[in-house]
């Protein structure tokens, strides 16, 4: 089975994702099954509809100046700041210098769905720009938090494709050669749940009349296959030169059919569509869907490439409707920025029936391996694998092997299983998936052997054991929310150290015939982990493996922070990250916490990260992994912190918005820290 498809491949020409307190853990971990909700998917390989208009000069992979003007800080997704005012010696003195509460928050108990807020603050134009889950843009003074302007999209606050109102922030663009005196030479973009893309002047907050329809682009107008379900723009567009590269989120767990995962390139000034890229082969688009890009992308402007993390096709856990080859699904795919043509693609899961979307932007890095300088790319995955390839060609840096994986047990009709899957030989997996996760003796003992009994009823033949209709189902590890979530990998280009946060969750999945599903699901709603996969012959049930007290049945830690030496591919250090908390009770630090969100690294040798259940924001030593500082936030900071310098002072900004998947605690806090003057 091919794992590496060069641009010349014919497919690319025709086709364009402790007792009472311990109980807390269970409830905390339960909803993690739903994390895979924000999923996207693709359709066609780069049909150019208009000539590109680029006037921005290419920028180097690592900008010479400190920047934090996009979702990952920079387009390379390194989440790295060369600022070093805050360092290991003084980080303990950090103090909160301002905070803002946006008011845009809902716990779901009122008229509105709950909010999930994972925005990275964007620092540009001497302003901090933030998108909210009520689809407003805030422009704040970076030194004081004072509001400069705000813009309300007046968007619907209905959970059209997601169970929550979600937002991961805004994107920023500015003209390389601005027209003097003209508005909208600097623009802030915000997408909405109903796929409207708003463009407003970065200085005034006024809509850009020259962009699309008076500042609003209706992306749903291009949703013309399986259009019963709308698209959602929850992730800000990726700005590459004068192009806005747009993915979207959909609903691939609920239905067999879904809109196929197209990616659109939009002119940043005018809102005109430049090209459309389609991921799924034409022959499966009608009966399947998604394989979209629901998270941010990365780009190398010098190479002229944008890198797409592609999700899995719909439905998530049955693939009998898409037995044809879909080589771009669950892949990292490199496109020519100007044309949308595929330059190379690597599929990381063949025939994905585990919802193992590629869910984070690959991090681009120049590394020296065995004395050779390599323009590399590291792709973190839900499986806990890190795939490292040459970002120019897609070829292996360290060998990636196709290894046999379990086939089905014969209980699922119409399914055709991939005989092999790609396994990296280096770096080592972030989680140990080499054997069935060990039962946690404490959880087993207090439940009088319930975990042992469950383990015996779960089918498991190793990594990639497929879903089954038998027994309690098949054990899956890592879970569908991912060993690594959309925060992805941060990278220190000076020391060539990569850092990534992980989650260790065991799930089990069972398929039900349509008739059995309707009986099993009656009265249970979605909370029990049932998903209909409507249209498919099987509904499914996905659960976190817990005992009746709610304690995880597998051994801690439940999340870690891992640092890797990228010159060797070896682990430099690893440690539990954060603290698991439930009902207010904090568990031992050695247990760690599942994480949502990502880290930021600075030249001061500091890792900043929130991401954990206990709603604390922390600083760790990049060198040793030692925790150096922490502060309490309003809710889990399920985002990527922003690091910026303003008027000679270094700041670190956290968004504390919460995510019900991690913990039932929401927030509307922007908390900004700096050293005392």
């Amino acid at each position, binding site marked *: 089975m091919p794992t590496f498809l060069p641009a010349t491949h014919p497919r690319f020409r025709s086709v364009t994702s*402790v007792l009472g*307190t311990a109980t807390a853990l269970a409830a905390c971990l339960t909803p993690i099954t739903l994390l895979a909700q924000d999923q996207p998917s693709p359709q066609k390989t780069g049909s150019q509809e208009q000539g590109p208009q680029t006037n921005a000069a290419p920028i180097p992979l690592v900008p010479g100046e400190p920047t934090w003007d996009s979702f990952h800080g920079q387009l390379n997704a390194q989440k790295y700041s060369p600022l070093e005012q805050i360092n290991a010696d003084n980080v303990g003195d950090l103090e909160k210098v301002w905070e803002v509460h946006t008011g845009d928050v809902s716990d779901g108990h009122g008229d509105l769905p709950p909010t999930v807020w994972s925005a990275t603050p964007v620092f540009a134009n001497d302003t901090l720009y933030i998108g909210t889950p009520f689809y407003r843009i805030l422009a704040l003074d970076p030194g004081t938090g004072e509001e400069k302007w705000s813009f309300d999209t007046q968007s619907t606050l209905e959970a059209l494709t997601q169970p929550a109102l979600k937002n991961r922030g805004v994107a920023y663009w500015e003209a390389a050669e601005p027209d003097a005196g003209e508005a909208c030479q600097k623009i802030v973009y915000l997408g909405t749940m109903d796929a409207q893309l708003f463009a407003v002047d970065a200085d005034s907050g006024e809509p850009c009349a020259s962009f699309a329809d008076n500042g609003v682009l209706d992306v749903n107008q291009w949703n013309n296959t399986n259009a019963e379900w709308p698209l959602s723009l929850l992730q800000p567009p990726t700005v590459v030169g004068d192009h806005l590269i747009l993915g979207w989120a959909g609903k691939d767990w609920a239905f067999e059919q879904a809109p196929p995962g197209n990616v659109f390139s939009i002119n940043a000034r005018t809102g005109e569509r430049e090209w459309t890229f389609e991921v799924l082969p034409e022959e499966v688009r009608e009966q399947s869907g998604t394989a979209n890009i629901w998270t941010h992308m990365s780009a190398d402007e010098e190479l002229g490439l944008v890198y797409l993390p592609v999700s899995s096709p719909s439905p998530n856990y049955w693939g009998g409707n898409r037995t044809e080859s879909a080589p771009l699904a669950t892949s990292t795919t490199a496109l020519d920025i100007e044309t949308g043509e595929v330059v190379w693609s690597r599929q990381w899961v063949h025939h994905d029936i585990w919802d193992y979307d590629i869910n984070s932007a690959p991090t681009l890095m120049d590394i020296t391996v065995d004395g050779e300088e390599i323009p590399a790319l590291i792709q973190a995955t839900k499986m806990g694998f890190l795939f490292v390839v040459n970002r120019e060609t897609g070829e292996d840096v360290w060998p990636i092997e196709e290894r046999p994986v379990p086939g089905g047990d014969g209980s699922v009709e119409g399914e055709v299983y991939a005989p092999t899957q790609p396994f990296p030989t280096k770096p080592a997996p972030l989680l140990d998936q080499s054997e069935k996760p060990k039962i946690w003796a404490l959880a087993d003992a207090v439940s009088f052997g319930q975990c042992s009994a469950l383990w015996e009823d779960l089918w498991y033949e190793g990594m990639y054991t497929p879903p089954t209709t038998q027994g309690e189902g098949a054990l899956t590890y890592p879970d569908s929310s991912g060993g690594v979530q959309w925060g992805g990998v941060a990278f220190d280009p000076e020391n060539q150290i990569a850092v990534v946060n992980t989650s260790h969750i065991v799930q089990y999945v069972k398929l039900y015939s349509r008739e059995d599903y309707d009986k099993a699901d009656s009265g249970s709603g979605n909370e029990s982990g049932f998903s209909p996969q409507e249209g498919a012959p099987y509904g499914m049930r996905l659960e976190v493996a817990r005992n009746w007290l709610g304690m995880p049945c597998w051994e801690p830690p439940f999340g870690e922070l891992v640092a890797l030496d990228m010159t060797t591919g070896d682990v430099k250090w690893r440690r539990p990250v954060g603290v698991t908390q439930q*009902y*207010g*009770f*904090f*568990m031992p630090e050695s247990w760690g916490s599942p994480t949502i969100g990502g880290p930021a690294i600075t030249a001061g040798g500091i890792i900043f990260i929130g991401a954990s259940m*206990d*709603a*604390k924001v922390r600083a760790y030593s990049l060198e040793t992994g030692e925790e150096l500082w922490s502060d*309490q*936030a*309003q809710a889990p900071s399920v985002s990527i912190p922003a690091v910026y310098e303003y008027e000679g002072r270094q700041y670190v900004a956290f968004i504390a918005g919460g995510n019900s998947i991690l913990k039932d605690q929401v927030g509307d806090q922007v908390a900004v820290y700096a050293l005392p003057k």
Partner: protein
Amino acid sequence: MSQPLRAKMGAIVLLIASLVGLAIALYAYFTPLTGVTGTLGALVAGAACFALAVMALLLMLVTGRGATIALRLLILIGIAGTFFAGLLLHQRWIDAAMVVGLIGLIIDIARPSSHARPAHF
């Protein structure tokens, strides 16, 4: 200090410690950014402190040996549980209050029992 007051001193210490614990738990529950704001755990710790305060009052009133022993046992369990909750809630002042409460209980246990008190003829 009068004799009756001295006899009740342990219970009084326990009562004060419990009320202080209650105040800390309520502060942790209602104040933003304590790490346990609005959590069930902080509320339970507060309820436990309140129960300890009530039991401290009862300790001053009961005279029967069996009732006293039972009450002291319940209080000891309550102190231990609340201390553990404070530990897991990262509310060290609750733990400090429980240590003081334990001292109060020990003082109460150490006081001469009503059965051993000399009769006044």
